[in-house]
């Protein structure tokens, strides 16, 4: 039900997470932020079991900040990812594992943009694009088809979220989007998705009652360098 996605561009990383915090069938919050800022250049996106996500993510966040305080310089994204992985792995075979799925995105001055995929079994992989959640089943194939290293522009982004809207049975109405480049983390416009045209096909359920304020149709802001 939760969804994370990250895409590495030529000199930036684009990450998005849905913004629903749910408890069984109820959306407790629809503007929940699942991204944790580890440093000026690193973001950790964390989904999974209710309390574990925040506990684990804040633990990593505070330790990364502590490292900077003690040593005077920040951890690189690679180091932060490996640190996270080690902690997750240490708890994995304890009696109390943390059930969290993570994306770690960062920009290193020396190495450039980096995106790391980590799952609850603490498997770590550096990847050009990655996603978590049921939505990943639907969006990874689009990324496989259209992604070219150094060539991700913005036009394909629209298709990513619209496929979720079209095919995914659970509504993910809004997403937080951020981009990391050499200047740091930028908040991009929050994306709301509504069924386009209000068209009802025989496969989809009837459209929900119209949302009161106008929502944006799906689009991403892309960087033009």
């Amino acid at each position, binding site marked *: 039900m939760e969804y994370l996605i990250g895409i590495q561009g030529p000199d930036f990383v684009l990450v998005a997470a849905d913004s629903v915090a749910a408890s069984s*069938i109820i959306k407790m919050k629809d503007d929940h932020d699942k991204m944790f800022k580890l440093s000026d250049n690193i973001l950790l996106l964390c989904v999974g079991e209710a309390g574990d996500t925040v506990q684990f993510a804040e633990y990593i966040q505070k330790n990364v900040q502590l490292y900077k305080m003690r040593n005077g310089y920040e951890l690189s994204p690679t180091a932060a990812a490996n640190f996270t992985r080690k902690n997750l792995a240490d708890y994995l075979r304890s009696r109390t594992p943390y059930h969290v799925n993570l994306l770690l995105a960062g920009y290193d001055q020396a190495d450039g943009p980096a995106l790391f995929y980590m799952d609850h079994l603490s498997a770590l992989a550096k990847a050009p694009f990655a996603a978590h959640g049921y939505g990943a089943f639907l969006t990874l194939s689009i990324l496989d088809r259209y992604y070219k290293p150094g060539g991700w522009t913005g036009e394909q982004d629209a298709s990513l979220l619209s496929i979720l809207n079209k095919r995914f049975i659970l509504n993910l109405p809004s997403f937080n989007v951020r981009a990391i480049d050499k200047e740091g983390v930028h908040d991009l416009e929050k994306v709301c998705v509504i069924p386009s045209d209000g068209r009802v096909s025989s496969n989809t359920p009837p459209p929900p009652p119209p949302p009161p304020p106008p929502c944006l149709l799906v689009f991403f802001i892309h960087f033009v360098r």
Partner: protein
Amino acid sequence: MALEDFCSFRNNPHLWTPASLLPPLQNPASSTPGIPKHNHSGRRRSELSNKDDGPPLHLSLPPASAARCLMPTVRRPFPLTHGTTTLGFVFQGGVIAAADTRASAGGLVACPEVHKIIPVHSHLVVTSSGSGADCVLWARALEREIRLYRLRHGRVLSVRGTAKLLAFMLHPFKGTDVCVALTLCGWDQGPNGGPRDGVDQGSAGSSGDATATEALIRIEGTSPAPGHVTQSPVSEQSGLSSSSSSSSSSSSSSSPYSISSTSSTAREGPKVIYVCSDGARLQGELFSVGSGSPYAYGILDGGLRWTLSREEAFSLAREAVFRATHRDAYSGNNVDLVYITEKGWSRRDREDLKEEYYTRKEEIGKIVEERCRKTD
């Protein structure tokens, strides 16, 4: 204290922390300021920091539910449910907390007159749902901790801090049968004001205390420290974003609270925070918890606006609880309403919903009669 006796804390401290990893308790004066000596959340220190002098070298996680595996689950005599409707929301006049008063045990109404809204201090109340016993226990434990904090630091902990403290207290019990879902509804005072409960204000603590509290404030992750990203209202926008100024309004375009989006990030003002025994900790503008919550959400989502007057907010909260108790079998009897403002919390009289129901039925009956007479 009673809580320690109840949990056999003194007899069996090893049940509360993984003993292999816990160093022998040192001189409490040298431990990290603010963390009590008998730490019921059982913080585990890593092997690196065996000495207690100075801050810990390695920030330690609370042992993730050591209790999960050490305490065998006792079979319940009857099924426990979240049989309740509670809600809390903020509006321009403060915070409203409302709840029904029924305690159910399976299909039996165990008690029709329970207090589900429990004050913690003069500017904070807790609405409880879940297992009744657990809620009372944890509300008392929270009250104790907040009181101890105030005595040690000379100021009251913010609502966010209280929520975080509660979440950390509940974390070791994740996976056990502890079932609490508490909504903290309170008002954060500025530095000049301060909740009162008969303790000296002591606004000027010693410098040592001040740094300790500041350290605690920063750890909570409020801006400007690099904390949770939602908290920073100032964010760099890409130059292309033509509606950069509307980022805050677009983020709140899905909620009617575009004005109040700053109140949730401000240090002062009304706050509603939901904490649950799974570990979830959510700050927001409206929460409803319990078996009757979907019905309450239906009423609240339709009628809630920031600009409600106080009377309108009361009637909305009452209506939501009333409708939920009508439909939900496990909620009912009366409705309690508490509102919290800058000056503290105050309680409205408990209202019997049975009478409310019959009054409304009469009114509808009259309207139907009128209509029949007019059409005749």
